[in-house]
């Protein structure tokens, strides 16, 4: 596989060796699964789809030439596979009318979105301890405000304040990072 892109340092990966392929897999697998999950809303199918994308990539490594950022390529390949999956599912269930094939995807934004997600990840890490705890319970564990309040023995008002504080912190953290 040839990767033709001079802008990006980490594209020096060459797929002729299995260890680099493994590295790329580890690096991008959860992200691609989450992306495909947005389309399919099915965890198992998402994993199958992304695994298949990687297997095809390895099998085609001598033929495939990538002219862009590797992640961008993988996102598009995963998306196409996900749409194919939806199509075959729909025809299997004969529910063509409910088929969301018109998912709008702006190609150039795919990577930007992922870069933004990386920044948010960094900023969440940097949240003050208490706000972080509440934010993670709400967003990552999916707990209701009341459930968090009960667990931590504080009022719902405090929970609201903590979430608000987190969001404001993340917002300014992102502004700084995006300016860099």
């Amino acid at each position: 596989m040839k990767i033709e892109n001079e802008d990006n340092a980490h594209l020096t990966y060459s797929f002729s060796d299995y260890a680099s392929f493994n590295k790329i897999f580890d690096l991008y697998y959860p992200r691609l699964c989450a992306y495909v999950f947005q389309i399919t809303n099915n965890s198992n199918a998402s994993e199958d789809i992304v695994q298949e994308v990687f297997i095809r990539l390895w099998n085609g490594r001598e033929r495939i030439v990538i002219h862009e950022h590797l992640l961008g390529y993988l996102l598009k390949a995963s998306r196409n596979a996900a749409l194919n999956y939806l199509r075959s599912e729909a025809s299997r269930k004969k529910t063509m009318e409910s088929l969301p094939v018109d998912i709008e995807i702006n190609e150039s934004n795919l990577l930007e979105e992922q870069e933004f997600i990386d920044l948010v990840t960094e900023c969440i890490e940097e949240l003050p301890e208490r706000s972080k705890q509440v934010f993670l319970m709400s967003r990552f564990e999916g707990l209701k405000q009341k459930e968090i309040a009960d667990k931590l023995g504080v009022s719902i008002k405090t929970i609201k304040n903590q979430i608000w504080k987190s969001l404001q912190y993340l917002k300014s953290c992102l502004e700084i990072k995006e300016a860099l």
Partner: protein
Amino acid sequence: MKPEEENRNTIIDQLTGEKRAEVESESRIGQNSALTKIWEAAGFISTMNRFNSSEAWRVVNQSIEKQNTRKIRLQKAVYAMSGVAAAIVLMLGLAVFTGQFSITENKMRLTTAYGSRTELTLPDGSQVKLNSGSNIDYHYNRVTGIRKVNFEGEAFFDVAKSKKPFVIQTPKGMQLKVLGTSFNLSAYPEDKYFEATLIEGKIELSNANGEKLILKPGQIGSYDPLSSHLVYKQGDPSLEMGWLDNKIYLDNTSLSRLSRQLERRFDVQISMIPASIGQEIHYTGVLGEQTITDVLEALTELNGEIRYQMKGKNITIMNK
């Protein structure tokens, strides 16, 4: 409530999904699309955390492996290997030899299943004894003379002397560079740490950050795949190579670490009830038993608190 606070609360309730957006409040959140964007990104990250790449890698790796071995006829592979290894393979015969070969150009792959072992001579003359559940990918560039190996599992290497380096890459970023020497390397991806034990010569361990650890004969280098830390480990080098003469040396070894070794050596599956006993029970000594039943008998005798059940390849160790 101050209007500002009310506004704030509405936004939070909408984001956390506790209240549906009404027409009026939709505009409030509209002004805060930056917050919505952050909230959605955090949701994406939370979804990402659900997917585990190391489990998935096992599936992908297996699938690729199957394709590879199907493609290549064994006979051709044996023919292409050097005389010594071919002789070993032929002597053992296919029934005993459960490793699978594939060779393309200057690349060679060898896999040993759980319960099987093998030894081979690489095209540059280096000798490798491969323990169960190991995988070796050998690349030899005939022009530059550089020997490169991707490796996981455990093996004893006797590397042919050459001025060109022999480089081994393990999973999770450990690298080992040698110039002609013999050493034992244990790097099973599922283990908590990897170990290299040097017998003769000189080797250099490094991690992805470029940190290095140089081993002299008799020294053991240990690598923590999680932190990428490389450190010298106290211990008896000959114990690290117990597997070569079918012995398992235990030095305050936890039952769960020992179970993994047994699973690989005997191709069995071991579970523990409760799972916590894996970390609670430790053993010290030498296990010379040659069958899984004998080993289990010895383990239950050494620790009177546990018993075991065996159904086919499935073994359960439990509290009495």
